[in-house]
């Protein structure tokens, strides 16, 4: 109880607990001490200009980047290290892989396996990593494809799908591991505008289903309507955070206001070109 690290499975404790996370690339400090707690079932949207460190922070959570300082706990597990009597020991690659199984991630460029069909993409990790039987994994994959609205595409190769369809398959692939936490790294940035809505709808359904999500996105509509909390980052620090109505509706910091007004101009330009997303 006394130790903030020792609370596996407790519902009250945050699912993600990050303290003073720092990260530099070749001497360039990208994260300058990020603190962030994400509760179970919470949907957090990370906003900020490019280069603000939001994608890097997301990638640090599932250790696609190693952090230089601070600690990140996911569901009570210290990510990447084992604390043996106050001395940190690096985990092995296999142990790190084990930690990642609890965390699903969707990428800006989808990163589906191009040599595998949609169905094979989805059953790959459950069968290869979790030891689920092929029949069981297939049954689950069919369910997931229905959930993302692609039940007619199990035999297609990713190259035969639109970007929006590929991203929905990527979401299904991540969900197939039954993650506790889903990370989305600009999931709609590489999509044609008319395909953004179908991906956001799947994400919205997921949020309504109670999934804990951390989303890096520029979709202000999604942030306003789906996020429980918006975190605005700039130059490697959290500038302000709170419910979307406050951060987006009534920003306190000049940097937030400048960013939001730029986003509004872009949105207006988009809206002039086509209908707003449902």
């Amino acid at each position: 109880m006394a130790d903030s690290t020792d609370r596996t499975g407790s519902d009250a404790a945050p699912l993600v607990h990050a303290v003073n996370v720092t990260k530099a690339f070749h001497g360039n400090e990208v994260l300058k001490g990020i603190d962030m707690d994400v509760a179970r079932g919470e949907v957090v949207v990370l906003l900020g200009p490019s280069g603000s460190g939001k994608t890097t922070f997301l990638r640090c959570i599932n250790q696609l980047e190693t952090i230089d300082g601070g600690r990140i706990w996911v569901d009570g597990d210290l990510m990447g290290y084992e604390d043996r009597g106050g001395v940190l020991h690096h985990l092995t690659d296999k142990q790190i892989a084990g930690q990642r199984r609890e965390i699903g991630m969707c990428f800006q460029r989808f990163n589906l396996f191009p040599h595998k069909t949609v169905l094979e993409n989805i059953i790959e990790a459950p069968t290869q990593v979790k030891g689920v039987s092929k029949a069981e994994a297939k049954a689950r994959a069919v369910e997931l494809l229905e959930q993302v609205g692609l039940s007619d595409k199990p035999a297609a190769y990713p190259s035969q799908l639109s970007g929006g369809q590929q991203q929905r398959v990527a979401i299904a692939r991540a969900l197939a591991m039954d993650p506790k936490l889903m990370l989305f790294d600009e999931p709609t940035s590489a999509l044609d505008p008319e395909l953004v809505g179908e991906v956001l709808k799947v994400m919205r359904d997921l949020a309504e289903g109670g999934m804990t999500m951390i989303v890096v996105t520029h979709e202000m509509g999604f942030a306003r309507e789906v996020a429980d909390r918006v975190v605005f980052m700039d130059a490697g620090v959290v500038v302000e955070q709170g419910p979307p109505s406050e951060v987006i509706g009534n920003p306190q910091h000049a940097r937030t206001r400048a960013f939001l007004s730029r986003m509004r101009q872009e949105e207006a330009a988009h809206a002039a070109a086509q209908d707003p997303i449902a």
Partner: protein
Amino acid sequence: MTSTTQDRPGRIEARPVRHPWRWVAMAVIAVLAAMMVSSFLTNDKWNFPFAFEIMQQSPVIEGLWKGTIFGTVGAMILGIGLGVVLAVMRLSTNPVLRGVAFVYTWFFRAIPRYVLLVLLGTGIGFLYPVFDIGVPFGQQIGNALGIEGGLTFFALDYNSISSTIWVGILGLGLSEAAYMAEIARAGIMSVDKGQTEAAQALGMPPGKTMRRVVLPQAMRVIVPPTGNETIAMVKDTSLLAAVPVIVELFYQSYQFGQRSFQIMPGIVAATIWYLIVCSILMVGQSRLERYYGRGFGAVPKKTQHKLTKIGADH
């Protein structure tokens, strides 16, 4: 439906560009071909009927199967297997593995295959007539402790295998691995980094990520040059005589020609066999390329069939 207006341009009927030099080139080639055919027919030192006869002799066929084809298959299996391992080592984060792979490639790329085969066939047997398989420095330790025979589990008489196809396969395979390592490395590096990240994010450990995600995609880049290497290997089996392994296509058919004082038919017989084997390999190569290109551009027929079936179900 006649055209409504006269001034709107209609169907294009243009004169093609003329290529007079193509006709000239064809004429030159036709003359050269005629000269060659005439030489085949008039110079009886070619003796094609005898060449076809040599092709069907059982020692020649045996040399083709047991030397050329078996040697190619064996050396390529060893070369590809070891080459991929070396490529993975070369790209590893472990500096020891990286160094070993680099030195291996450096050494075996610098040694001519002919020299390597002589070295393995003659040199090794001269240096180490018997291989003792056991504890390292077992003999020295054994002598010091006064144990008869040292710490050897079993001994291998190298000279009993030094002139067999196995030594030839070992030499050609070790040499091939150095080249395959470079090909495999290029293939692995051609796979998008996002693929590794996606596999990692799904919780796949590094070994599995390599085997299940990266290597299958690298194959698309690896297969075409590997086909070339295989075809080159078919021809390099003619070096097996250096081991010396004489159950091999060229040695056998050339010997036939020499014994009957008809040199050309012997060479021609081997040449025709090499042409046949390499042609078959080229067909196999294009099929493999199509298999590993799946999911990239062209859709395989089987999948198209599956897709239409699913469409019909709905």
